[in-house]
């Protein structure tokens, strides 16, 4: 007995009901896939923003306690030139293609000569910055190796002080030893941080300038590591923790995901919405299949009696209905996949933009395709649908044959 052909014909027998069920599966599957695709694109955008936009790289190496105590005792948490060299050597020994960039963060006052405002700055060598910016290396905001006192400032900060490209400004900071120090800089470019909270205070300054200003020549508070492949991140972190400890360093290594609070918050929220959506859609689909299969089993009780009388085992009757449910899910998912691809193509081609929360710029609405989640949803739907079909089929197959044959 060919269950697939038998099952397909039974689906066509009441094609309206089957069509509605298949459509409900298709729409549900498309809703899940489209949201998963949107979330995937968002995650990708946010991760790119964190790794290349915020220059977090893939791993950040710091001395233990920098994040909590760094401001109180900066000297204690700075790495010396020799330490930086040794750490870089250990990193490159593990991943020869890894890029290692020392960084030093400072804060203070930025003045245009008339008014001042606070700033947060990242000290980074212009050549390192170019590499860490990866695919964004040509975007605005990059430091120039040609101008030693050239800095780039966030647009909000520039607007606040009326600074433009070519304007002169002064940085006033407290040095490592608590003394005031100031330096004149030239604005070489402005950029958007993409983050509303940082837009009015962030800037990039050449590392050498920051070290001089902070009175910390050759020193850095962290080392950023850019790996050839993001998927290596966790494995490399584990290796480095062990090897740096063996080399006598008491260091903390954080991944870009751990450091990007915004990424984690958005991902956590989207994951929760996805779970909520999945639960609703799956419930509707399972109810729809349960209804269709229960109706089908009731209508075919007499047929089940006939099959049982001519020698079909109970398990085969159940298998027949399970096959029908599986076929409906497969057809539904296939139709849903087609719908997903069509809608995705339409949305991506429509060039829609929107401004996400906490963002300074509009971003394009792009839908990706999350293959893993689509497959996982299809498998989940298949399993639940088979269960939904098995229960009524099992009840009917367990019924005495004479009752089933006498069913009207």
């Amino acid at each position, binding site marked *: 007995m060919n269950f697939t052909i038998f099952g397909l014909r039974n689906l066509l027998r009441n094609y309206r009901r089957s069509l509605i069920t298949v459509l409900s599966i298709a729409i549900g599957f498309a809703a899940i896939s489209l949201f998963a695709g949107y979330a995937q694109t968002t995650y990708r955008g946010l991760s790119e923003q964190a790794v290349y936009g915020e220059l977090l790289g893939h791993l950040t190496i710091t001395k233990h306690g920098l994040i909590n105590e760094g401001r109180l005792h900066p000297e204690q948490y700075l790495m010396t030139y020799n330490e930086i060299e040794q750490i870089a050597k250990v990193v490159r020994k593990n991943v020869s293609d890894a890029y290692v960039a020392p960084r030093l963060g400072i804060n203070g006052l930025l003045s245009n000569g008339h008014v001042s405002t606070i700033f947060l700055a990242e000290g980074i060598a212009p050549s390192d910055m170019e590499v860490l910016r990866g695919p964004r290396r040509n975007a605005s905001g990059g430091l120039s190796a040609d101008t030693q006192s050239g800095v780039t400032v966030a647009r909000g900060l520039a607007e606040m002080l009326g600074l433009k490209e070519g304007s002169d400004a002064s940085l006033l900071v407290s040095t490592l030893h608590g003394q005031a120090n100031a330096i004149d800089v030239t604005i070489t470019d402005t950029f958007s941080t993409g983050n509303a909270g940082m837009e009015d205070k962030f800037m990039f300054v050449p590392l050498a300038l920051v070290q001089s200003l902070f009175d910390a020549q050759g020193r850095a508070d962290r080392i950023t590591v850019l790996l050839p492949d993001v998927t290596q991140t966790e494995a490399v972190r584990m290796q480095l923790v062990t090897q740096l400890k063996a080399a006598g360093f008491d260091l903390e290594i954080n991944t870009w995901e751990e450091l990007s609070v915004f990424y984690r918050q958005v991902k956590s929220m989207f994951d929760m919405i996805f779970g909520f959506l999945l639960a609703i859609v799956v419930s509707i689909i399972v109810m729809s299949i349960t209804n269709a299969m229960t109706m089908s089993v009731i209508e075919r009780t007499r047929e089940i009696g006939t099959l049982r*009388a001519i020698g079909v085992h109970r398990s085969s009757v159940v298998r027949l209905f399970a096959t029908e449910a599986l076929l409906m899910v497969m057809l539904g998912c296939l139709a849903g996949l087609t719908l997903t691809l069509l809608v995705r193509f339409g949305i991506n081609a429509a060039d829609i933009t929107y401004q996400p929360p906490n963002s300074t710029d509009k971003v394009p609405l792009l839908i990706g395709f999350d293959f893993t989640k689509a497959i996982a949803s299809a498998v989940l739907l298949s399993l639940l649908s088979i269960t939904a079909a098995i229960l009524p089929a099992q009840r009917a197959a367990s019924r005495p044959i*004479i009752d089933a044959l006498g069913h009207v």
Partner: protein
Amino acid sequence: MLSHQNASNNWDDAANLSSNPPALLELLDVKRQFTLGQVTVQALRGISVQIVRGESVAVWGPSGSGKSTLMNLLGLIDVPDAGQIRFDGENVNQYTDDRLADFRNRKIGFIFQSFNLIPVLNALENVMLPLQVQGVPDGQARERAMEWLDQVGLEKFATFRPDRLSGGQRQRTAIARALVIDPMLIIADEPTANLDSENSHSVIELIRSMNQLTGVTCVFSTHDPRLLDQVPRHLLLKDGQILEDRRVEAVQ
């Protein structure tokens, strides 16, 4: 064993091939009761009967006499509350559900009053079905099913689904489905009840000729006097008991 009193018609011939034909079916003090709401109905009150190989038996009686219950027990699609059923010498009472299903699939053919064909399968596929359940390869099953459709005169309707067949054609298909497994027993539950007189006659003739051809044992339940006239042994049931077990001279 209830012996034959008349051997003058064709339906008796098969049963008389040997002087002491072995019993195919034996019911020993079989009882069956049903509970309908708060009422318990004694459908069969201790029936003992033997049916020998090749024999044709008509079970008849008024409504509620227990005909259908007896047919269900003979066809092994129901189990007794008490008593024993032996089929081909085997005590089938203790069989598991799957073993009983296999047993029915290989040894018993059913002809139902309402034909009970599978609507999504065409005539040929309906006839092939019991063979496919047995695991017979498709090619072989198709060939054997086609032979039987030919025997019942439906070779030209092989690709027709039941809804495109007349009542008579449907019952012929059901007969082919019952016989395709080369069964030891045919259980026919009022096979002519839903047919007009012409088709009834045709179906009766068909079953009769198949009985002669294959020597298969046939048990009918019927109200149809035309069918009763054709069957040499009548079991008259009343109130769940065999009132009369009679040999008659069947009409040729």
